[in-house]
């Protein structure tokens, strides 16, 4: 007696809940590992998962068991040299000769418990408690696209939208409704006629009346049309507003002589974090790289991060170029625009005030969010001070100061932490 069941198509993630429980329980340790990892890892593989290591002592499940010491007898196979009474030096450590020593009873050694979390889990942990900054309602309203979605059926429409099954169902129902009574009468009449036929002397008058009635009924039934314009059903569509999923991220960076490669790497990490974060919210995220010294230029990623320039610094050139690109290519009605500017704080002194003015009057109203990070171990200069004055009046501007690599992730969290409701 046996029967086979094919379970291969059943869900394979029966343990998913337990896995989540595990992650939940060790969230603190895992989050620590995640934020350590972000500053250690090479930036390019940020898009993959992360391998998490938890100290084994933290996840032990203790139970009573025997420790070392005392007297034990063990039976082993494969004797090739021993005679009773032989003395053997005690193997050092947990050697094989000792068989089931303490190590195996512990179940796990003292290595850290290492496991991989998926990209999604990694990003969830990385960006947990982070949200896009509060956005003005009118901005949200503006960024709408319409999408056609099915919504039921209607009685009028164009032929291309006819739903055949629905229409024929209506036709069938109408025909049943319109002929049922007549069919019943027809049946009765035919029965009566049949009875008349059986009689020895049929009542000719009644027979004729019945024959006539039958013919009339048949005609009436046949006159019910197979399909009527009344039966037709058309698929209905509605336009549903959907928030646009297009976003563009502007990366602005100072590449003047004062920015060294290490500073650029830090900026790059920040941009990558921002990119990952945005790509969790928006389906398509485009990136525009603008680098500047005294002049600004739109470049590709490679050039942005790795080409060296020298010269002074005029930040407003980059802002102007950005404004230009926005006006030409990224209609703020359709695009969610984010910008992150990284700099070591140097700017031509006369330029800082125009920068702030340009930002405040022209750019910020078009943008979702503008983040300025200053990567410098030194004191702030005029640009920072100018931006600082804008903070009070502009919700979508944030400025932060980064001193070293390990600051990036905390600063990023600081910028995007969920606002208390």
């Amino acid at each position, binding site marked *: 007696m046996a029967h086979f069941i094919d379970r291969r198509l059943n869900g394979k993630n029966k343990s998913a809940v337990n896995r989540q429980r595990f992650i939940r329980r060790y969230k603190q340790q895992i989050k620590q590992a995640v934020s350590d990892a972000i500053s250690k890892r090479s930036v390019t593989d940020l898009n993959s998962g992360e391998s998490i290591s938890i100290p084994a002592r933290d996840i032990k499940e203790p*139970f009573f068991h025997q420790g070392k*010491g005392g007297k*034990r007898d063990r039976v*082993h196979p494969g*004797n090739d040299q021993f005679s009773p009474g032989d003395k053997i030096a005690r193997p050092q450590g947990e050697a094989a000769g000792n068989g089931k020593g303490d190590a195996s009873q512990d179940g796990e050694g003292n290595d850290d418990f290492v496991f991989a979390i998926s990209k999604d889990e990694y990003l969830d942990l990385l960006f947990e408690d982070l949200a896009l900054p509060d956005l003005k309602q009118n901005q949200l309203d503006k960024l709408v696209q319409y999408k056609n979605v099915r919504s039921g059926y209607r009685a009028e429409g164009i032929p291309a939208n006819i739903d055949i099954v629905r229409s024929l169902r209506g036709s069938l129902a109408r025909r049943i409704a319109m002929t049922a009574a007549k069919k019943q009468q027809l049946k009765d009449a035919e029965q009566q006629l049949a009875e008349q036929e059986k009689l020895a002397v049929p009542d000719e008058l009644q027979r004729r009346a019945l024959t006539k009635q039958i013919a009339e009924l048949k005609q009436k039934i046949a006159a019910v049309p197979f399909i009527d314009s009344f039966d037709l059903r058309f698929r209905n569509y509605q336009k549903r507003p959907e928030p646009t999923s297009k976003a563009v991220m502007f990366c602005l960076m100072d590449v003047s002589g004062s920015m060294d490669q290490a500073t650029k790497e830090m900026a790059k990490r920040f941009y990558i974090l921002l990119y990952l974060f945005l790509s969790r919210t928006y389906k398509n995220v485009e990136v525009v790289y603008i680098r500047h010294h005294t002049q600004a230029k739109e470049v590709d990623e490679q050039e942005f991060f790795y080409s060296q320039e020298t010269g002074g610094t005029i930040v407003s050139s980059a802002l102007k170029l950005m404004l230009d690109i926005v006006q030409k290519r990224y209609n703020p009605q359709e695009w969610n625009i984010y910008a992150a500017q990284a700099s070591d704080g140097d700017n031509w002194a006369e330029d800082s005030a125009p920068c702030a003015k340009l930002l405040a009057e022209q750019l910020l109203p078009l943008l979702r969010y503008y983040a300025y990070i200053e990567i410098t171990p030194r004191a702030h200069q005029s640009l920072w001070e100018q931006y600082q004055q804008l903070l009070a009046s502009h919700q979508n501007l944030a400025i932060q100061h980064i001193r070293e690599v390990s600051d990036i992730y905390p600063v990023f969290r600081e910028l995007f932490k969920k606002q208390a409701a």
Partner: protein
Amino acid sequence: MSSLALNTGPCLDDGPDWSFELLENYQQQIARVAALYKLDTYPNQIEVITAEQMMDAYSSIGMPLGYNHWSYGKKFIQTEQHYKRGYMGLAYEIVINANPCIAYLMEENTLPMQALVIAHACYGHNSFFKNNYLFRTWTDASSIIDYLVFAKNYVSRCEEKYGISAVEDFLDSCHALMNYGVDRYKRPQKISMEEEQKRQEEREAFLQSQVNALWRTVPGKAQNATTVSHFPEEPQENILYFIEKHAPLLHPWQRELVRIVRKIAQYFYPQKQTQVMNEGWATFWHYTLLQHLYAEGRVSDRFMLEILHSHTNVVLQPEYNSKFYSGLNPYALGFAMFTDLKRICEQPTAEDKSWFPELAGSNWLETLHFAMQNFKDESFISQYLSPKVIRDFRLFAITDDSKVANLEVAAIHNAEGYQQIRQLLSAQYNLSQLEPNIQVQQVNINTDRALTLRYIPHNGIPLADNMQEVLRHLHRLWGFEVRLEQQDNLGNITLLASCQS
């Protein structure tokens, strides 16, 4: 090789890819032959699953469904890691002691492997589950699935009511004492879902009232106080049961959780004690049944070669100095013992006649069935380990006494050593010597309600140093001070550890 009449027939398709139709054919043939050998089984429910599902099954210690707990998640992650890195292959099958008996076949197996697994799990293990006295006494195959459903639902209801963390922490504490949630001597009650649910609420109320009676603070008659001055009257081995019945502060739902953990521990208790026998029995039968089919000409040479290849791997016993050595392989030892038992019955030597006078020349099938039904590893080895098996394995015993500088070879596979090896190997499978003997010694019911456990070391083996952590878990369950003391062979009592509020 078979002593039974052969019923030759056409050779079955030998794959190597399997189909459900082919599996059914093989299953029928194996069932037919198993009946010839009087293998009495529960009906089989054979489920084909993928490797991922097999890992799921692994992490819930083979239970088809279990309540949710992080430790199963950890187990799953470990299994997945090891499997993906190739440290470990997955078992070809998992079989569950239930009625019908559930066996999982992995999709990746070839046809011969599936046939091997069907013979091994669905007829070997299955007949063992149904007939071995430990399983018959301690587990109720017909209700285990129901009980697991009940447990899973109960735990998730508790999580909804009291929060995931509260339930999780509490289960952690129960798990820490899971090995002490077993009745070793008393026969347990059968468990089934309807009964469980029907009685659960009454039990809650009743239990609570019992606990309250014990801990009543209103002074009763002075007489009462003296009669219960030592509580419990006898030391209690089942610590979780003691907690469930007597812990002063637990809520009814917490008592029920203790009960669930304890019941599941009880269910797995026989499996721990019959590894060698169970695997040996299943291995013996997959070998015998498939050899029988081969002798009948029903399976091809190609099929049989793959079977023998796998079989050889299963019963491989690395020697003590091999880098693959990790103790005695229960499959190898069990298979060798059952095979040798058959040989003793059929072709006894003079040695066998003096060692096993009743067995030599008896009906091998009856003898094997009797051995399977009435023993556990410990007693099976002390009863049936023959000098020939000891010689074949070249077994030797090492004494490791921490008071002495060197290890000493106590006995080897010679005439003087057979008895001692047999006795030592049997002791090696004696759970009561492997698990520390810890019992509830005393509760100060009239004073500070402190709970005292007593550890009685075996051969002077101390407890591992994590006892403080375990005590913390016990403290969470008991709610008042817990103490752990040790009694040495001279009867001296020393305090090992304690955990106060």
